């Protein structure tokens, strides 16, 4: 199996990561009793801490390098965890989903109060005065029995 090792600098949650390859493709073996989710790749190369990402061609998956273990005989074990966001980004983009949060207002509803709006305890008072109201001076009203002649 061939392994591309290198680095990425984006947030781990990014689907599109910029992979900077370190060196050329390396032949590797997979440590026994590991799986495609958390494989341990054995490469014949001195341990280097300057990598955090790799691509296993046979698996067709991108992996986060979680730990680097120096073995005897110039071998290095890369303890990896599959990056599903990048490995299956095309399939993810084909999915329909109900989204809870979105960066763009276009796909958001700014009138949905999910508790994420943050405000101070301080408040402001705006006063809007109506144009008209009661008179400042009163009018006498006298009601009498009969009368009105």
């Amino acid at each position, binding site marked *: 199996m061939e392994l591309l090792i290198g680095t990425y600098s984006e947030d781990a949650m990014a689907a599109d990561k910029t992979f900077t390859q370190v060196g050329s493709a390396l032949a590797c073996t997979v440590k026994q009793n590991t799986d495609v989710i958390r494989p341990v790749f054995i490469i014949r190369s001195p341990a280097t801490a300057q990598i955090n990402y790799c691509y296993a061609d046979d698996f067709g998956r991108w992996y986060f390098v979680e730990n680097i273990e120096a073995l005897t005989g110039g071998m290095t074990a890369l303890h990896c965890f599959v990056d599903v966001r990048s490995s299956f980004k095309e399939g993810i983009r084909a999915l329909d989903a109900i989204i809870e949060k979105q960066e763009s207002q276009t796909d958001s509803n700014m009138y949905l109060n999910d508790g994420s709006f*943050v405000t101070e305890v301080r408040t402001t008072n*705006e006063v*809007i005065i109506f144009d008209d109201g009661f008179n400042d001076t009163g009018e*006498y009203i006298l009601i009498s029995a009969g*009368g009105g002649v």
Partner: protein
Amino acid sequence: MAAWTLTLAELINYFSALTGAKVSADVSELVKDLHINRSEETYPYLAPVGIGSTLIQLVRGFPATTGGQKIAPLFQSITTDGTDYTATDAGVITQIPAKDFTLSLLNALGVSITDLSAGVWTGVCNALSNIYGREVTLENIGDFRVLAVVQNGSLMFDEATIKAWSDALSAEDFFSRGGYVQTLDDVTTGRHEFNEFTYNSELFLLLKQLLTTMYAENTIPYPYTDANLLSIVNDFMTSIGDYDISAKPVVIYASYVSFSENLTLSLKIFKNLDYVPVNRDGTLLPGYHSANVVLYASSTLYGYTYNLRTGAKTSEGDSGSAYHYTTDINTGFKELYASNINYVKEETIDGIEIQTGATLPTDDLDLPSEYPAWASAGVSAGFWDDAASLLRTRKMIPVALQEEGEVYVTPQALARDGVVDHAGTKAKTKILDGAVDVLDTPTDWVDEGTRTIPLDVPTSPEPMNTDTPVVVLPTGTAGGPVTVYNPTQAQMDSLRTELWNNGLVVTLQTLFNANPMDAIISCHMIYASPHVDATKKGLYLGNVFMNVSGVNVVDEQFIEVDCGTVSVPELFGNATDYEPYTSVEIYLPFIGIQQLSANDVVGGSVSLVMKEDVLTGAILAEVTVTKNGSTQTLYQFTGNGAVQIPLTGQDRLSQIMGGIKGALSGGFTGGVAGAVMGTASGAIASKPSIMKSGGFSPNTGAMAGKLPYLIINRNIPLDASEYNKFTGYPSNKKVNLGSVSGFTRVKDVHVEGIICTEQEKTLIEEALKEGIFL
């Protein structure tokens, strides 16, 4: 797939909106065939923004009357002659690629597409970018769709969509010249401007350079004097007449006719050019040069030929309106151009032609007036807006679609009929790229399955016809067995004097066999102007004249004080404009400060009318909110605005006791309510309801303000800068994840169609719910 139940109320609402009252008789006939329960799919939709027309997120139609398992709109023929409507369900909803709709609409608006050039696509992508508020390129243009309906072989689009597209295409200058303008940046570089003082001399120098170069190339001594050449130039300039050299571009073109002892020189001038010359490769013409030159558009030509030896002149007689001159720059100054302009390239876009006699839309299309025949065509289609839970009707206008992969120059009128005619007698029309073929019958379509249904309609709820009833005040009811006077202060003083006249007291005691003050039923002050009879009268107690004349008599028991209307717009444009972040109160004279719901009034206008009973001082404050097209009286508060005037000691005592009771009641109520409500409130950002005024007695109300006002209390927002990139805005919308970008956190998703292990599917779902940058 989601089950959806159509209620009868929704159904009736639907038909009513489509057809008005006249359809009511037909409702039962149509209802019986409808299958109330069916399933449907919902689809994501990219809502265009920034075009003055907003869209809802999802529309779903109603079940077809036959089959009943799929969605279909109901259509309403648009009539202009007052005839009855006829509702039908014959037709289908579908969606069309936005690019195909754009190109087809251009034909319908009078711009023929003769070739799908790069320039065409640039303009189309720019227009769609403006419509959708995101960058549209040839790589992603296929992601954008437009709602369409098909009925009776016609393909129709929403009127608002057509207007939005027209405006966007107009902004790309598709209609101004059928193309676009490219302004070259360095307008001054190499520019050589002639003016009336230097023109002749500069032309002279240019010609001399031309001639000396030619003679040198032929190893012949230059034989002419400067005076001879200058006289030719002056003669040429005189011949062509005066003109404003700064107003329009001019180009002078010079070449030799024959090279001999009697060399003749051809001088021509193109002046008042409508468009300016540029090099074929788009570079600038310098002030004078010799190069490959293309003259675009018309000009006025003057041409003369001069014998350089003798100065004799002959008219060359050239004329024309469009010219294309080329010369070889590598051969030197055998030909020469001199121009005063060189800074703008203006050309029609390749592949676009304005149709002859076309009616082009204005920059801000007013469709009914600009295209009356078109606007009265089509159908009115009914859709159910899932997001707003409202029925919406949209006017759908026919536009014929072009054949995929081919270009048809479709006359404007034909492009507007939307008729499908694969025989070729009209515009060949076909719905593209996965949409239903319009040749299919609705039944065929029903068998194919459900469709995506995006639609342009306003996001704000449509006005609901739910206005509250208009209240009419009773009129002419003041008085009856009593008389209601509105005396002045002087008249009250006279009454007081007369009231304690001994003779009067005896008379009144005789009449009433009791306290003479019983003849006075009430004496109070109100703070509104009562409505009085035009005829003033004498003041009587019982039938005893009180020697007070010319007193106003109130003839309306109830009066109305219209306090006006104030707007309460949103300030933040999000949920913080509403509860619990914002609270609204209203101060009402003689009533006090009362709580309103921010959800009711923000984003609308508040009208206040206060009504008062002149006889008792009872006040009714009606708070009416106009919002979303509806006017509703949502709040009513009561109080009393009559300040009693004591006439006897007993009156005075009862008023004092009443005042103490009112004060105790107001203070006690306000204090306890405030304490309780303040303690009970524990929700973050929620506003405790603090009672801000106790119950007003009429006397305390008289001392308080007489103008009502709103108090809008808002929490100050404290959103972190660009927090949306970290946490995102609230959404709760169903979208295709390929249509969104940036930080996205998923609420619910079914991971399907991805080839991976079950464990990885779980990881994908977890990752999406944790958040992903797309």
